């Protein structure tokens, strides 16, 4: 308890408050701008804070992490371009809400949900770190492979407006794209045609910017199509709070799902958002309203991706193994400031875990306040004349693609995937499963083959692991449910009840 008080004291020093506000603000801004991901925000700030006092640097890094994951929702809602891959699920319902003219409400809900998600995850960090670490170690190669497939199946089903095959095709295409480059297991150059840049693999961020940003930008070139956004009606906070209160249970549920997804090493914020969205849709009385501007969709997705933050930090603290890409950078920063996350943390620096927890919680609250202030401006900026806005966004897309690896090749990749994005949207294929395929492809590939190599090519071990069997059954049911065999069966079941 004394540690908690100490942490509060440090955080509430005026200088540290200022740093937290600046860092969280910078994080929000980077999260909002398409193509500047949370990973990059933390990596850039790590360099800047090298010479800061340790506690101040921690506050800055945690602030920017929370800000960047949460900021992505604003551009997702207002212009349908997710600011970070994690907020792709938010755009699904968020943009329709903005089109109704309730962008302010959408942002309020997303931001509040983000705050709740982070706070829920803090509770888990502070109370269950040792138990949850054991849970994380239950996942080995086969489980990872099945989770990757599971993620793509649910994302494909969610985004495809009734024809799941189209969503899955999009997911398969994404997986194929992720095969490009040196493979992780044998460093064999696949689909690289001798090009070193291709051997390095297709970077995620340029693909995301291309797929989501490009179609929206090109749409702006149509003459006389610049007034599709309804005028923003002012929103009142009471309605927002009422909605949040009404959905208290989905918030907690999504939070727990997010924490669990975050803990599993290698699966991060992106999957957390989709999984909690899927759960909310499937347990809802009115699943058809999802994707058309259902407030609950926004709330679940944002709670889910933000609670991954705490989840991803848990294995960082207890094992020094990061649960997601931004958490990996955070781990590096901890090392640089002389902390030694891992099994010795509790005996060497017992205050550290409480400090991280308290800083996270405070960052969430600061983020909430700042985001609402920023949203007043961003609503206005992002509803500017699209003919002015979109070329500027394209310049940002170019710089964002470049900065992820300081490589101009990635800028070309962005353009190519922009054309793919246009093709997908014209032929009515959802882009989100494609993106998730690129994110999860390497995970699926290396874990499948590692598993097979460990078992000398036998698939049997998959059936001997309890978590595997659960995922396997769910995956098969999901595929069958779309093939027409399932529906009459369900109908029969209902009748007999």
């Amino acid at each position, binding site marked *: 308890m004394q540690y908690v008080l100490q942490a509060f004291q440090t955080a509430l020093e005026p200088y540290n408050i200022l740093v937290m506000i600046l860092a969280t603000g910078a994080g929000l801004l980077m999260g909002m701008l398409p193509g500047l991901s949370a990973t990059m925000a933390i990596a850039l700030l790590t360099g800047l804070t090298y010479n800061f006092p340790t506690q101040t640097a921690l506050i800055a890094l945690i602030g920017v992490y929370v800000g960047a994951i949460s900021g992505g929702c604003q551009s997702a809602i207002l212009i349908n371009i997710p600011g970070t891959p994690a907020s792709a699920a938010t755009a699904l319902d968020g943009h329709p809400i903005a089109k109704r003219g309730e962008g302010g409400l959408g942002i309020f809900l997303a931001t509040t949900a983000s705050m709740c998600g982070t706070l829920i995850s803090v509770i888990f960090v502070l109370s269950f770190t040792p138990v949850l670490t054991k849970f994380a170690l239950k996942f080995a190669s086969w489980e990872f492979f099945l989770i990757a497939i599971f993620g793509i199946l649910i994302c494909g089903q969610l985004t495809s407006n009734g024809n799941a095959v189209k969503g899955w095709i999009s997911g398969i295409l994404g997986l194929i794209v992720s095969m490009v480059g040196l493979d992780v297991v044998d460093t064999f*150059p696949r689909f690289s045609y001798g090009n070193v840049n291709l*051997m390095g693999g297709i970077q995620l961020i340029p693909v995301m910017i291309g797929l989501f940003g490009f179609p929206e930008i090109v749409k702006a070139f149509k003459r006389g199509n610049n007034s599709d956004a309804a005028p923003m009606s002012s929103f009142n906070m009471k309605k927002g709070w009422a909605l949040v209160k009404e959905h208290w249970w989905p918030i907690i549920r999504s939070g727990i799902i997010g924490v669990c997804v975050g803990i599993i*090493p*290698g699966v991060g914020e992106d999957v957390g958002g989709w999984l909690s969205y899927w759960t909310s849709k499937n347990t809802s009385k009115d699943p058809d309203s999802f994707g058309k501007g259902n407030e609950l969709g926004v709330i679940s997705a944002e709670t889910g991706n933000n609670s991954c933050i705490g989840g991803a930090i848990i294995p960082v603290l207890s094992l020094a193994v990061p649960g997601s890409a931004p958490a990996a950078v955070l781990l590096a920063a901890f*090392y640089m400031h002389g902390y030694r996350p*891992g099994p010795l943390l509790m005996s060497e620096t017992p205050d550290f875990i409480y400090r991280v927890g308290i800083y996270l919680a405070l960052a969430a609250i600061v983020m909430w306040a700042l985001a609402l202030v920023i949203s007043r401006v961003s609503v206005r900026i992002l509803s500017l004349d699209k003919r002015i806005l979109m070329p500027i966004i394209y310049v940002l897309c170019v710089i964002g693609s470049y900065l992820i690896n*300081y490589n101009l090749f990635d800028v070309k990749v962005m353009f190519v995937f922009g054309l793919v994005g246009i093709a997908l949207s014209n032929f009515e294929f959802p882009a989100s499963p494609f993106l998730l395929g690129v994110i999860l492809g390497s995970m699926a590939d290396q874990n499948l083959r590692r598993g097979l190599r460990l078992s000398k090519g036998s698939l049997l071990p998959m059936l001997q692991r309890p978590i595997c069997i659960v995922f396997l059954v769910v995956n098969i049911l999901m595929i069958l449910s779309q093939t027409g065999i399932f529906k009459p069966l369900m109908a029969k079941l209902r009748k007999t009840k």
Partner: protein
Amino acid sequence: MKRILTLVLALVLVASLSVCAFADYPDKAINLIVPYGPGGTTDLTARAIANGMSNFLDVTINVNNVAGAGGSVGTLQVENGKNDGYTILANGMLALTTMPVNGYSEKTYRDWDIWLATYAPNAIVVPANSPYQTIVDLVEDMKARPGEVTFGTAGIGSGGHFGAETMKAIAGADYSHITYAGGGPAVTGILAGEVDVCPQLLAETKDLIIAGDLRCLAVLSEDDIEIAEGVVCPSITKYYPEEAAAYVPMGEVTGIAVPKGLDESILAKLDEAFAYAAVQPEVADFCNLKSFTLMPMTREESQTFLDSFTSKACYLLWDAEACANDPADFGIER
């Protein structure tokens, strides 16, 4: 209006160009390319040294992570980029010196000016509940079941892979190579008990050894290493002095590098800055934390060190038939 603007633009352009041409090095920010993702050992070492050098040179040093293709993308970006002293590379020498035999580049370590900073040994570790109590148990089992014992590493050409190849050479029997996406996942793999042995760098498993989750059978350095009060990792030379002699010390050596051909005045500046950075207390603290040996070397010393190091690393791969080109083709002697 339009004309004035064009004029102003042209003037600014000319001015910025002329400033670049006439100035003492360094007069603008230096980009330090790390060819791996942030958070790895190369990245952390690079950042610690970059900080010292930046204080000495009084310019910003931006650390840019250009990950991909096992370090090749970033390295080639420096190799093929403008060689003006404003783009420098920080890399592990296992990756840099084996690039020609792996077919990623025509250039060898002799085409670079290199300053070496740290040495990090491999540690052969097993889970706490493993049947292997000593390194002898492991070697005997490898001999009894060739190709069956599983080694989890961070991938082909990683520090762990060289550790595994060294064990193979010592035991005279093959192993089953299970690769992960990086050092972190490989450590998770050994913790979860998915593989039998993890031969990654000591820095990556140190804390888990101290905590008792993993057991260190041997380190591939010449001497024993005490990583904490009463926790000593025995050197492999204790058990296999003859067999190991040719390979020890094995591990990752990290440093910074620029392609040959820079002006001597710029190189001299970098010499000084590097020497200054390597003795900063932060760097020493960091090395201590990670059990790295700090061994700053000048350019000439580094080349001499790399002569034997490169030969060792390249022939380990070549003899294991794990690389495409013969080291002899690049003038690398056995």
